[in-house]
């Protein structure tokens, strides 16, 4: 089974039926897999804070949400995380492409990578880092934990986890 299938199987097994995305090359396969599942409504958003608003509404409407985004978006969404998701105590799994780690070809991506874990720690956001494919074995438990405690939870997936950048 491909890692994309495994990830989306875990989302579906945890009743996640509303997913918003701001795309990333590394997460393209997951997004394709989500589009192939009729039980999951996929609503692409134009910016990650907008996406978190959609997720907040979907959750209040009875659908378990998830957001797929890049780690650069942590810089975009600090206020939304603090004053919407955390303040109103809402669950939100964030499946994040962790750009700027080992095997990264684009130097600028390193700049936000340096801040990513520090910002998440400052926000008291539970954070899991997938570096090898077996790390994803915990995804099912991480999702259960997220909807148990009604908090945003970050799942950082780095280039090594995705097998590098192909030709780069």
């Amino acid at each position, binding site marked *: 089974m491909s890692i994309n299938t495994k990830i989306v199987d875990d989302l579906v097994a945890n009743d996640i039926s509303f997913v918003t995305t701001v795309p990333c090359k590394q997460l393209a396969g997951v997004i394709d897999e989500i589009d192939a599942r009729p039980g999951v409504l996929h609503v692409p958003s134009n*910016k990650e804070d907008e996406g978190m608003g959609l997720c*907040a*509404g979907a959750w209040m409407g009875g*659908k378990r949400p998830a957001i797929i985004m890049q780690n650069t978006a942590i810089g975009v969404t600090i206020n939304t995380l603090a004053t919407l998701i955390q303040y109103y105590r809402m669950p939100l799994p964030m499946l994040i492409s962790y750009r700027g780690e080992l095997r990264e070809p684009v130097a600028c991506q390193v700049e936000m990578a340096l801040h990513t874990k520090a910002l998440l720690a400052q926000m008291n956001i539970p954070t899991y880092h997938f570096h090898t494919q077996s790390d994803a074995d915990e995804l099912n438990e991480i999702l259960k934990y997220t909807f148990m405690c009604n908090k945003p939870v970050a799942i950082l997936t780095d280039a090594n986890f995705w097998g590098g950048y192909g030709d780069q």
Partner: protein
Amino acid sequence: MIRSEILKDIAPILRDQLVVCNIGLPSQELHMIDDQPTNFYMLGTMGLSSSIGFGLALAQDKKVISIDGDGSVLTNFGTLPTIANNVADNYILLIIDNGSYGSTGDQPTYAGKKTSLTEVARACGCENVVEVAAKDTGKALQAALDGDQMTIIVSKCESGNIKVPVITMDPVVIRDRFMKSVQA
């Protein structure tokens, strides 16, 4: 008419509907005029009223009204293409456009100058956009509720504020009673 007068005018229409209300004075005014468990008051996060309401409309069948402002829509312009391209016919976006950032002291917005939010919404692909004068807001809102088509209403009004108390209700209480109303 100013925003608080519009809200007073449409409060009887809003009462039985799920309403997501914009941050700052709009929420404080609605809370003072007619607090209902069916109102979700935004206490933070400027710009996301339309997104929260739209997510809610996509997730369940009841009608949802997002009350937004011109300044807040300008802050989250990306919302309009998302709404246009994922139509939910149980969704109404009411933009109260007073041409100013009311909650911060009525500084002018670009919507009060050369930018038409009505035209922007249409250009983004929203199919049912109506612009009305403030006094006709209730009529337009009732028509939108009676129809089964997603509607964007841009209500043009004067800027100006009244004195209102802040909302001291706990956010989790606001959210919990709102979710119970959604499920009821």
